[in-house]
């Protein structure tokens, strides 16, 4: 029989522990496939955060280091500076990278640190039970914005990849989504490009992926995908936000 689909060599056989309909798993599979296709699984070191994204350390077949909440990019910097010829990536939630870890995100971009960061934006703190994130939409209800996020007192949702795209050392920044087969393909292309940017030593690369959190959004899986499409995609600028001249030539 002809096998048309199999588990990526980039993934261990540990079953995913995400809630039903959570798209964290799709994003991890895409990264694993890219690492396998680029044949860099044996030379890659991943850095996991704290958050639902943190389980990544068990799911990939490459080496992994678990960082404190928000510190994955500083940890990644340390690894990359020690082993400049290895591929280093961080896999982080939106709260991890765009709230508690903001300073590291801004400065890995400023230094053009040759690492790749995958930001999983579900507009919420998933792991801790659905509190407001910097990416939570205006009027969106969370456990710490029970009456909806009021920008007057809670601030506006932050388009973090857009902010990082404005920093010179960021060579490649893309904002993508995994809500449909077409967008899943685009996401994989962006992830592949981000790793190639790192391999070519062109600077910092970031792929922000809009992702669902059915559990804390209080929606079922298909409603979640629809909600993401209708509410998040209009707010967050989508597509390639930064492609440096050198990256164009890749």
């Amino acid at each position: 029989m002809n096998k048309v689909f199999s588990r990526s060599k980039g993934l261990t056989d540990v079953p995913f522990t995400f809630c039903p309909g959570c798209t964290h798993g799709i994003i991890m599979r895409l990264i694993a496939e890219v690492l396998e296709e680029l044949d860099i699984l044996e030379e890659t070191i991943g850095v996991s955060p704290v958050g639902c994204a943190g389980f990544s350390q068990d799911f990939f077949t490459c080496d992994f280091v678990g960082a404190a909440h928000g510190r994955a990019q500083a940890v990644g910097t340390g690894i990359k500076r020690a082993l400049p010829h290895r591929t280093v990536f961080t896999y982080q939630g939106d709260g991890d990278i765009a709230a508690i870890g903001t300073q590291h995100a801004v400065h890995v971009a400023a230094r053009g640190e040759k690492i790749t960061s995958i930001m999983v934006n579900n507009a919420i703190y998933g792991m801790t039970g659905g509190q407001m994130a910097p990416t939570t939409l205006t009027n969106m209800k969370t456990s710490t914005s029970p009456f909806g996020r009021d920008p007057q007192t809670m601030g506006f949702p932050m388009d973090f990849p857009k902010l990082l795209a404005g920093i010179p050392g960021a060579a490649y920044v893309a904002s993508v989504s995994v809500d449909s087969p077409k967008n899943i393909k685009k996401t994989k292309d962006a992830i592949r490009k981000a790793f190639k940017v790192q391999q070519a030593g062109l600077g910092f690369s970031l792929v922000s992926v809009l992702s669902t959190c059915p559990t804390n959004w209080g929606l079922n899986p298909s409603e979640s995908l629809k909600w993401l499409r209708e509410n998040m995609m209009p707010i967050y600028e989508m597509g390639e936000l930064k492609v440096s001249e050198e990256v164009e030539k890749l």
Partner: protein
Amino acid sequence: MEEKVLLKGNEIIGEAAIRSGCKLFFGYPITPSTEVIEYLSANLPGQGGTVLQAEDEIGAINMCYGAACTGSRVMTASSSPGVSLKQEGLSYSAAVELPMVIVNVNRCGPGLGGLGPAQSDYFQSVKGGGHGDYHLIVLAPSKAQELYDYTMQAFDLADQYRNPVMVLTDGYLGQTMEPVVLKERPPAQEWDRSWIVDGAEGREKRILASYSLTNEIGEANNLYWEAKYKEIQKKEQQWEEFHTEDADYLIVSYGTTGRISKSTVLNARKKGIKLGLIRPITLWPFPVNAFKPFLGKIKGIVTVELNTGQMIEDVKLAVNCGVPVELYRRQGGMLPTETEILEYIEEMIMKTDAKEVQA
């Protein structure tokens, strides 16, 4: 060949790091420790190493964490407020058992405080500092040569026990110029490196992380660390004794005040007072063994500290309250003179003698 040089204390720490094979340094400027990063910025890259000025101390310690995961020798240096920012990272580093060296050129606090010499970070350094049950190995130099020697030793201990090691000094030592012999240290022993993360090439993947999924795993981890700390406590206590053989009274003091106290001891001896000094070199593990021979023989102990009295708690535990222990302290960046200390001790002796007469 052994070279003798004249350098600032902080520069000596930098030179010792280079000669210890430190390959990466991550730091953030703060007085009075800044010369460490300045010296290394000028000298480490030429030796094939990397120096990176991080966005802050949190960044710096987490970069150390990442680099240490690869098995590279790595160091950071800071002063009190900066070291406070590193505490979460140190807790994680201890939990993942990462060898690294942290230098704290203690300034006086709390808050922004001042730049003067202090020992007010004693508790933070020896009791853990960050969250959870863990310990750093803490070495306390009292002169330039020891800044050099102990920094080198710190790298070896860090590798041997897979544990962060702190060199705790102060602005007085860090800023003072003194001659130092750049002794060659025998090449470091090769420790097991089958834990490092450097790409799973031809081997199973490795994970370096500290999350315990269940309480049972959590307890097993804590028991394992506890056993390691006990072993360190058993094997690594270090201290210096000065005129202790026939002592009636002992000063216990480390670092800068340990050094000043030596003059106090000599002056006391001239006056016929049998005073000795125990200078802890390892603050953790605290050298409890140093005190055993003196129990039942001495009349009193004075700890001399640059804080409100922190180490005195460990001294009291070490003598199990079997000897009166008093504190002489200066704070806020002030240093005591040897005479001030002696005057305090003479007063204490008078009180003790009066009690003996009453009895």
